[in-house]
C-alpha cells in the first residue's frame, strides 16, 4: 500500500484572466521520482511554484505530508527543498559560506564539506560560485537545496542548457538523492530524462494533465492504440556515440 506524500486536488491558477493551470489533480508516492512533462508554457513551473508556497493558490488544495500548503506555508518550507531554474548565488562568496548561509536560513549549522563531497565539489570549496562551470553550478545548487535534509525535493528543469555528460552526471546525482529515501518531483521537457529517472510521469498540456502513468505503461498504451513509429529505430544513436567517445571519465 503506497503512501502518498504530496496530494494535489483541483488546482487552479490564472494570470490576468488567462487560466494557466486548469484544475489538475495528482498524488505523489513517498520515495518515488515523479516527473511533470510538457512543452514550454504548459503550466509545469506554475504548478510547482504553487506547491512550493511561492505562488498563492487560486483554487484547490495541496498537502505535503498532511500539511496544507496554503495554510501553513512556513512549516512546508522546512519540509521541502527546491532547485530553482536559476543557478545564481551571491557573488564573491565561497561555496562553503554559501552552504553555511543557506543552512542558516533554516536555523541550522552544518558541515559544508560533507555536503560538497556528496556532489563532488570538495575541490572547489573555497572557490566563488561565479567561477564554476554550468554543470558544477547545477550540482552545487542541488547541494544548497538539500542543506536541511528535506522530505520532498523539487527540481525545475534541472538539466536545461547542460551538455550530455553534465546531464548524465546530474541524473546520477538525482538517483543518489532518491536512494536516500527522498521523494523527488521534477519538471522537464526532455523525454529521455523522464524515462531515465521517473517512476511515474504526468504529461501536461495547456494547463491540464493529459496522461499520468509510468513511462513504460504510457508507451504500451500508445502501442495498444495501434501507433507505429515510421522511422526504423537504430540500436544506438548519436548521443550514445558522443558519450562513448567522450564519456569515459563519466562520474569522475
Amino acid at each position: 500500500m503506497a503512501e502518498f506524500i504530496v496530494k494535489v486536488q483541483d488546482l487552479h491558477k490564472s494570470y490576468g484572466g488567462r487560466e494557466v493551470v486548469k484544475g489538475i489533480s495528482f498524488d505523489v508516492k513517498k520515495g518515488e521520482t515523479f516527473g511533470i512533462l510538457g512543452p514550454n508554457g504548459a503550466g509545469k513551473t506554475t504548478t510547482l511554484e504553487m506547491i512550493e508556497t511561492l505562488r498563492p493558490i487560486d483554487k484547490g488544495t495541496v498537502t505535503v505530508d498532511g500539511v496544507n500548503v496554503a495554510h501553513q506555508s512556513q512549516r512546508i518550507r522546512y519540509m521541502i527543498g527546491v532547485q530553482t531554474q536559476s543557478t545564481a548565488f551571491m557573488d564573491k562568496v565561497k561555496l562553503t559560506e554559501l552552504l553555511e548561509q543557506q543552512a542558516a536560513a533554516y536555523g541550522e549549522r552544518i558541515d559544508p564539506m560533507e555536503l560538497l563531497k556528496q556532489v563532488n565539489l570538495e575541490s572547489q570549496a573555497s572557490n566563488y560560485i561565479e567561477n564554476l562551470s554550468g554543470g558544477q553550478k547545477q550540482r552545487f545548487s542541488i547541494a544548497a537545496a538539500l542543506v536541511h535534509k528535506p522530505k520532498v525535493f523539487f527540481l525545475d528543469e534541472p538539466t536545461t542548457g547542460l551538455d550530455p555528460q553534465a546531464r548524465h552526471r546530474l541524473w546520477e546525482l538525482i538517483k543518489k538523492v532518491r536512494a536516500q529515501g527522498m521523494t523527488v518531483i521534477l519538471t522537464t521537457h526532455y523525454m529521455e530524462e523522464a524515462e531515465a529517472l521517473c517512476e511515474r510521469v504526468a504529461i501536461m498540456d495547456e494547463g491540464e494533465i493529459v496522461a499520468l502513468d509510468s513511462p513504460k505503461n504510457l508507451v504500451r498504451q500508445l502501442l495498444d492504440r495501434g501507433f507505429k513509429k515510421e522511422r526504423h529505430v537504430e540500436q544506438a544513436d548519436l548521443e550514445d556515440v558522443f558519450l562513448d567517445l567522450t564519456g569515459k571519465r563519466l562520474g569522475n
Partner: protein
Amino acid sequence: MSGRIFLIIIVLILAGRIVLKRTPVGRNLKAARKTKSNQQPMSPTQKQIYTVLTFAKISILRYFRDRVAIFFTILFPLIFLVVFGSFSKSNDVSFHIGLVNQSQSQFSQKFVADTKSNKMFKIDKEVNDLTTAKAKMSRSEIDATVVLPPSFGEIEAGHPTGQAVIYYDQNNVSAAQTLQSVLQGQFEGINSKLVSTKAPFTVISRSTNTQGLSKLDYTVSGLIGFSIIGLGIFGPVNYFPLMKRQGVLRRLHITPLRVWQFFVASVLSNAVIGLFSIAIMIAVASSPLFHFKIIGNYFELAAFIAFGILTIFGIGLAIGGWAKNENQAAPLANIIVFPMLFLSGTFFPRFAMPEWLQHVTTFLPLTPIIDGIRMISTEGKHLTDIGPQIGLTALWAVIIYAIAFRVFRWE
C-alpha cells in the same frame, strides 16, 4: 590624537583577522568553537540569532572582497574630503580685485606695493586698465577694481593726497562695501601718520580665543552624511534588484527565512561596514593634513552614527526591496537622495540657506543625523543633549521601516 586612536582600532581589527585566519591558534579556536556548539542543539531563539549573524557575517565578508564597493564607500568619500577639506582650510576672507594705477607718484607706487602684500587681497595681474577690469568683473572673475587716478599721491599742503575709486558691478555690492571699509582703514592708518590728530572715537576688534566651528567641522559631518547615503541607499538600490533578477532572493524566499531576519542581518552588516569606512574617514580628517578634532565621546558618536545608518539604510531597503529591477529603483532613489544630498547639509552648510529653506530642510531624514553627528563630534554634546535630533531620526526610522516591510518582495 583622535586620528591615532582610530588608526590603532583599524590596525587591531586587521591584526585580529590575520591571527584568527592564518595562525594555528586561531584555527584551533575556531574549531573548538564549532565542535562545542555542534554538541548542544540550539534553542529556537538561538537559531534565529544564528541565522541573522550568519547572514550578516557573510555579507560583511562579501563587502571586503568587492573592490568596487570599497572604492565607492571608502575611497570616494575620502576624495571628497580632500577636495572640500582643502577648500575650507583657509579661514581668511580674501578678495579678488583689480588694481589700476594711473598715477606716477612715489606714494602710489608704495601704496600698490602695500596692497599687494596685504593678505586680504588677491590682485589680478592681467588687469592694467579699466576696460579689462570691467570685462573681468562682468564675468565675476574679480570682485571689484580699485583705480588710483593720475592725481593720486600728489603733494598738497606738505603731504600726499588723493582719492582711490572703487568700481564694482551690481552683483558685488557687498564685496565693494567691504573693500571700501578695508581701504578706509588702510587710509586712516596712513592719515594718522601724516596729520597727527587724535580721533575721539575708535573701534578695535579682539579675538575671544574660544574654539568656534570651522568650515571643516561642517564639511566632515556633512561627508559622514554623504557616506551614510552612499552606502545605505545606493548600495541596496543597485544590489537588491540585481539579486532579484538573478533569482538569488527567490532561493531565500523558498526557505523559512523571515523578512525581518533578512532586514536585521542587512542592517547589521551595513552598520559594521559603515562604521568602518567612517572611522577611516575620521582618521584621515584628524590627521595633520586637516586637523579635524573630535571633542565629544567616541562611543556616543559611534552609537549615533550607527543609528543614522540604520535609518538611512531603511530607505535603500525600501526602494531596493520594492523595485522589480534596476530601472525601477534608480530614478526613485535619485528623487529621494538628491534633495537630501544638497539640502541636508552634506556639501553646503544649512545655515547659509535662506531661512524658509532651512525650516523645510530641518525635517529631511538626513538633516538631524548630520546635525547630531556635528554636535557630538565638534561641539562635545552628549546623547542626552541632542534629544530633538534623536527623536526626529527615530520618527523617520519608524516611518521608513513601516514602508520597507510593507513593500518588500522577494522576486
